[in-house]
């Protein structure tokens, strides 16, 4: 039965990928990409990777779609025809792809028991994490404690992406950006009344859910990455329906910038505190007298840092894309 569901989901994914390749209408491509994200999330649920599934649903079907929609508003809806023969690119892709497939031939099969990672690391995590870290969700234990340094790297990647977008596109502090809610809000008020009402009801629940995922990450699926994305999508929803200026008045872009840096600093700071207490970087056992309580405090703080940075970086990217488009329009007129 599970095989049947897997085959159907994977063939849907393949069909959608082929449709994305063939389409020229970028709007349709983005919608298909959103469906692709949702289907891969369902696939991850079927293979019991619930944490990954939540992330994929929040990124692939949620924030990614929104960011890409704003990007197409900026860049135009239709794909332009090829300016040169794609043969060279095709050859490069083909060679790289076949090398990757060739490389994967050496890897052990999926779920193959005697493979090295199932022999040593896996059994250690599964058998010892409860006594070493004391967090029921092993994924969180691995992500935030055993592999804390890797996660710090991932968070830095997201932060760097936000900084790069700001460096390239930032126009957040233009003179006319603080002129009140403006005509945009009035138009939205007149045209989108029912949607605004429903969204107003839903936003608190979305935020509540985000906080649930954030603080329940030690016990169930979830954590900082997912919570940050869900919270960011709530704010983006608000900005889309109540006008970007209203959203900027509610929480100013400066706050997002500070929060984005604060998350990384919190994460690194926890590591430095552990270092100063005479342990390894990001070894949380020394944060409290009881090592297990120390681990728990460390994981909560680190997840909080992740949540802050992911949340504010996503919103900064969205705001920068949107403002860029507005400025382009102003430039045309």
């Amino acid at each position: 039965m599970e095989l049947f569901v897997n085959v159907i989901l994977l063939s849907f994914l393949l069909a959608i990928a082929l449709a994305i390749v063939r389409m020229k209408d970028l709007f349709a491509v983005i919608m298909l990409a959103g469906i692709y994200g949702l289907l891969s999330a369902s696939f991850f649920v079927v293979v019991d990777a619930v944490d990954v599934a939540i992330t994929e649903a929040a990124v692939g079907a949620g924030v990614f779609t929104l960011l890409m929609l704003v990007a197409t508003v900026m860049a135009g809806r239709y794909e332009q025809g090829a300016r040169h023969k794609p043969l060279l690119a095709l050859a490069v892709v083909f060679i790289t792809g076949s090398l990757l497939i060739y490389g994967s031939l050496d890897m052990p099969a999926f779920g193959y028991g005697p493979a090295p990672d199932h022999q040593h690391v896996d059994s250690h995590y599964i058998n010892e994490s409860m006594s070493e870290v004391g967090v029921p969700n092993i994924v969180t234990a691995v992500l935030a404690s055993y592999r804390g340094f890797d996660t710090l790297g991932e968070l830095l990647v997201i932060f760097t992406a936000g900084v790069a977008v700001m460096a390239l596109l930032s126009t957040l502090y233009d003179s006319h950006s603080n002129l009140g809610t403006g005509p945009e809000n009035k138009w939205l008020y007149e045209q989108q009344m029912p949607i605004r009402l429903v969204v107003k009801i839903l936003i608190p629940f979305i935020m509540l859910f985000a906080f649930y995922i954030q603080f329940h990450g030690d016990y169930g699926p979830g954590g900082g990455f997912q919570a940050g994305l869900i919270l960011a999508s709530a704010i983006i929803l608000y900005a889309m329906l109540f006008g970007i200026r209203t959203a900027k008045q509610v929480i100013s872009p400066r706050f997002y910038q500070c929060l984005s840096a604060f998350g990384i600093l919190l994460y690194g700071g926890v590591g430095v505190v552990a270092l100063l207490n005479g342990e390894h970087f990001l070894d949380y056992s020394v944060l409290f007298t009881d090592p297990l309580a120390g681990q728990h405090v460390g994981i909560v703080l680190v997840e909080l840092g992740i949540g802050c940075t992911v949340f504010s970086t996503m919103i900064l990217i969205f705001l920068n894309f949107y403002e860029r488009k507005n400025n382009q329009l102003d430039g045309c007129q």
Partner: protein
Amino acid sequence: MDTVISVASLLCLLLGSFLCLSGGVGILRFPDFYTRMHAVGVTDTLASAMILMGLMLQGAEANVVIKLIIILLMTLFINPTASYALAKAAMYSGLKPLLNMQKSKRG
């Protein structure tokens, strides 16, 4: 009592699946955008409600049932709003509904 509940759950699930299918057929067969949206919007909301009710009748634990009720409420809020937004966007960008009068006039 157990048999009654499981039969009711089965009926709900079957009806939900049938409505899902009929919504899918509607997308393919109906003539223009608005009728297609009607097919999906109406049947999808009822279908997901039916399937969730069927699952609720099967779920023994209270927290599962509460989660399903929350999902049901969310779908009841979101699905009609999404349909409304779609129709509004189509209307706003100038897509006229296919009317029977126009057809007979042309014919």
